[in-house]
């Protein structure tokens, strides 16, 4: 078994927070619950300004099939429904809740199925009603992923504990601290799609997590696979290739090769939702990078502002030169800390001036490094130059839409070219051309 996907890079993994146990934070005085927490249509608010809400109470409903419900993380009052900061940098409508400190919860015993007596269909509804989205970063609604059409049988579920982004350790800690929650969710996912096999995939830089998972009570058909450390192994298609050798066809989904991938955090959240009736109102995130005084892994209520996370953990050592929402390879640069933790927030990284290499973009010298690391076997340098010189017509012929934007090409580029930015721009230009 090769356990290998094509291409990839090996950035320094910088997992400095892997020894920090997950800890809680003092609640924030104001929660910003963005209506766009996921890929797909924004949610529709179900509460009005002035309403008192209880913990776990649904406050917004799905705005479409690919959309999610939203729940109050604690009890309090709806102060506003208005455009608010969002990690994307734009203002997005959010429900602003002022917690009352009582943390009074809605009784949801009727939603819980502790003995797992109900049907897999019913569990899937619970997942949808609990607002669960993929927690690895892309935030795709989980129930949609667990609903493959009948002509696409699923034989394997992959529990994604790879966590290949440098600095992030939230999934690592979760595997160490809550293996049974993850395996419970994995068992439910197997039942829902009727898969007989499942694999817990972990990169070799987390041997303790692999050890814990192996020693846990593994459901029948579940194995633990340790994979060599290589970015972007956590990307679904690359993970499937490494584990099974199967290649998800272009434009296709993992279900096309009989696989469903779920992040370990998502599985744990599913387990709580189905067995205890708890909707998704919190998540684990890593606060990392050289700048925070209190780097670590924190259980944070959805809607907590990033500034609150930073202040509660001791602030920053100095002025931030770069703030990243997520990991350093695919995460998004933030202008400030006003935006809230969303369901897809895997980490916040802060770097001071001079801690990241200053880039000076130059002409491509055709060294070919980007080609050898591209997991999609594209020609990133060609795509970049085509966009630079505005030759948009050929982008499709060079398969620009197959780019997963992992950033491996830019990582290795000796000319410091912003390949990912070029490719995003190229994709946007193609969309604009198609729209005409």
């Amino acid at each position, binding site marked *: 078994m090769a356990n290998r996907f094509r291409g990839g890079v090996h950035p320094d993994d910088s997992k400095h927070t892997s020894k920090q146990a997950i800890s809680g934070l003092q609640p924030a005085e104001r929660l910003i619950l963005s209506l766009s927490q996921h890929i797909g249509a924004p949610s529709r608010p179900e509460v009005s300004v002035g309403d008192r809400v209880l913990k776990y109470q649904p406050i917004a409903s799905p705005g479409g099939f690919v959309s999610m419900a939203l729940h109050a993380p604690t009890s309090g009052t709806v102060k506003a429904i208005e455009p608010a900061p969002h990690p994307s940098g734009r203002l997005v409508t959010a429900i602003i809740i002022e917690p009352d400190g009582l943390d009074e919860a809605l009784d949801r015993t009727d939603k819980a199925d502790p003995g797992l007596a109900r049907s897999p269909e019913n569990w899937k509804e619970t997942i949808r009603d609990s607002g669960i989205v993929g927690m690895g970063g892309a935030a795709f609604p989980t129930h949609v992923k667990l609903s493959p059409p009948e002509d696409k049988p699923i034989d394997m579920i992959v529990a994604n504990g790879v966590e290949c982004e440098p600095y992030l350790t939230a999934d690592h800690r979760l595997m160490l601290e809550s293996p049974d929650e993850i395996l419970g969710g994995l068992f439910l996912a197997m039942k829902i799609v009727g898969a007989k096999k499942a694999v817990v995939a972990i990169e070799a830089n987390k041997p303790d997590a692999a050890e814990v998972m192996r020693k846990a009570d593994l459901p029948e058909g579940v194995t633990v696979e340790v994979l060599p450390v290589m970015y972007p192994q956590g990307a679904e298609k690359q993970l499937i290739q490494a584990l099974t050798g199967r290649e998800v066809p*272009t434009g296709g989904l993992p279900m096309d090769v009989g696989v469903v991938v779920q992040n370990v955090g998502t599985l744990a959240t599913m387990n709580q939702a189905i067995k205890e009736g708890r909707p998704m109102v919190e998540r684990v995130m890593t606060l990392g990078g050289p700048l925070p005084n209190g780097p670590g892994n924190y259980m944070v209520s959805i809607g907590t502002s990033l500034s609150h996370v930073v202040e509660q953990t001791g602030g920053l050592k100095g002025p931030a*030169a*770069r703030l990243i929402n997520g990991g350093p390879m695919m995460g998004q*640069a933030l202008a400030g800390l006003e935006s809230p933790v969303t369901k897809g927030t895997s980490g916040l990284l802060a770097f001071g001036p001079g801690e990241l290499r200053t880039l000076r973009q130059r002409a491509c010298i*055709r060294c070919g490094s980007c080609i050898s690391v591209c997991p999609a076997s594209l*020609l990133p340098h060609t795509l970049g130059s085509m966009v630079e010189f505005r030759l948009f017509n050929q982008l499709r012929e060079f398969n620009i839409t197959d780019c997963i934007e992992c950033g491996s090409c830019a990582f290795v580029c000796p000319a410091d070219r912003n390949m990912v*930015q070029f490719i995003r721009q190229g994709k946007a230009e193609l969309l604009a051309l198609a729209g005409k």
Partner: protein
Amino acid sequence: MSTVLAPSPHVRSSVTIETAMYGVIIALLPGALVGACFFGLNALKVMTISIIACLLFEAMVLKIRGMDMSPLKDGSAVLTGLLLAMNLPSNIPWWMVVMGAVVAIGIGKQVYGGLGYNPFNPALVARVFLLISFPVAMTSWPVPKPLSFSLDTITGATPLGAMKTSLMMEGNVGAAANMSLVDPLIGNMGGSLGEIGALALALGGIYLLVRKIITWHIPVSFLATVFGMTGIYWLINPELYAPPTFHLVTGGLMLGAFFMATDYVTSPVTGKGMVIFGVGCGVLTVFIRLFGGYPEGVSFAILLMNAATPIIDRYTRPRVFGYPTRKEARA
């Protein structure tokens, strides 16, 4: 202080254009040292003039183009200067070196837009220009005098040249082709600064491979093709064709295979393309050496293959992830 809103990825490898360029320069030092040992002060003079002239012309053209001077520091002009010097005889008049630098930087590189845009290896463009324009000066090599620093020199032929002469005059490859390999290996033979000392050049090549500045594809396929093809001819008729080992260690083959053909800008970008490129360089080199009018063909071979690079790139695009393989597509 405001934060930087740069696109991802936010971390980059430490490899830069400078790493690659200065890496190649370091790898060239053993070969350059051998040149200096056998040709003395003249060799140092040619190298110094060539590097300084390349930097000066680079600066001039950047100034004319209204650009900032930062490309001067990327190492590419220094490397072109050093490579050009390695391609010249040590007794070449200084003004020819300067002309070579003008051609390399001006016509070879900046005319197309500078580093990254040139279709041909600039140092080779200059070498071939000088070879065609000043054939006598470019083919009168001083006889090597180990560790002698006198400036007057006696000129003689290279082993490849002696072989060609013998073939034409006597009808056989003669003594040169069957000489001991020790002298060409250590550098004790006639030739351009970087043509002698196959061992030192190969050492530099191995350094480039170890540091992953180049991959094996081009040098191995180039050298193997030359070795294999000349081996076949030699087996057929050793009277007319020199042994493959002779071809491997003489002339500009080592310099060409490790340092010139591997130039990123002018060679293909995929492994498969590089192998095709290396084989092409080898085939052309052998044909020119065995049947052409020039005793040596490495520079012409590489330049011709530089011209073929775009078409090689076009036909060696990798199969994109998630698309059927050629076999699957046929089925």
